[in-house]
């Protein structure tokens, strides 16, 4: 009985901490403007939509990985999929959750677009280093 209570409490608290942690990662990039090339490639200018995420992730996979953003991208990716799960299950019973989940997923897309901008800059630096004699 006690173990079951601890399990339920832990899962509920874990979800709260996980959501807040992912939001703190996203908040750090929310005010960062997107470079022109990212705006052109993704079509995202100021606000992203929830559906942009998978397209931006596809583009991210084309660029060389930056070790610095690997863990945060994984966490935000997991958050995006978790929101997708909430949207297609719990949100059916609580409709207000659907718009909340969409808003959060849109912010995940913007985070991925910022990461894409950083990766493009990183690739450019790598190329410049290789071109040097």
């Amino acid at each position, binding site marked *: 009985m006690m*173990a*079951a209570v*601890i*399990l339920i*409490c*832990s*899962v509920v*608290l*874990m*979800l*709260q*901490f*996980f*959501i*807040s*942690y992912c*939001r*703190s*990662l996203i*908040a*750090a990039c929310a005010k960062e403007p997107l470079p022109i090339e990212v705006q052109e490639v993704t079509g995202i200018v100021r606000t992203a939509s929830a559906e942009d995420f998978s397209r931006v992730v596809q583009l991210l996979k084309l660029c060389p990985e930056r070790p*610095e953003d690997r*863990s*945060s991208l994984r966490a935000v990716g997991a958050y995006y999929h978790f929101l997708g799960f909430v949207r297609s299950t719990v949100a059916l019973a609580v409709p207000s959750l659907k718009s909340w989940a969409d808003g959060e997923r849109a912010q995940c897309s913007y985070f991925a677009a910022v990461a894409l901008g950083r990766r493009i800059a990183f690739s450019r630096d790598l190329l410049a280093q290789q071109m040097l004699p």
Partner: protein
Amino acid sequence: MPGPYGYTVWFICTLLEASVVVCAVKKNAFRRYLLLNTYMAVSVVADIARYNILSHYGYVSKEYLYFYYYSDALLTVALYLALISLFVQVFKELSAEKFVILGACLLLTGTSLFSYLVIQQSTGRLLTRFVVELSQNLYFVGLVLTYVLWGAILKLRETRAQLVQLVLSLGIYFSLFAANYAIRNLYPAASGISISLLQFLGCFLPLAWAYAFWRIPEDARLAPATLAVIPR
């Protein structure tokens, strides 16, 4: 005996723990978060010592078993102290550090006493059972305390982004471990999977802390109210 997966996760986890200390030193955050870094440094030493004992005496030896559980209990107490140091950071401006430290000592004593009361009926290996019980209970106490700390951060409008990320990642870590211990108690048959999962989960905290020290500048600020699941 740990397989290739076990050794790989163990090695990665040790590297990540060492990288937390390196990142903190490089970003001049070592002294600011002294107990957090001390915990990570002690974890690295414990991992190396565990590996030495494992290779000398074997996985099923008494020496390894005792060292594993005793070092685990010490590490849990060290992590508890690291959590209290985060409380001190948050409550510093209210000049309430003394009360926080006093409360933490009382809670640690209370948890130890509770753990002793739980195991006092068992016969033999009383101390070993005590350290195992203490570790489990401290994980749950740590989880509750982290939640209280998160509440205090929201209430006091603490804006230090690095501190917020350190607290949130600690909350995820404690809740994952508490859930894992609960699953092991509920389904003892799943103990094998649970232990290998535990090793993997152990990598999360050093990874998140290394990220917080390396990527988040000391003066970065954010509004924690916007991060809360239930808007405040």
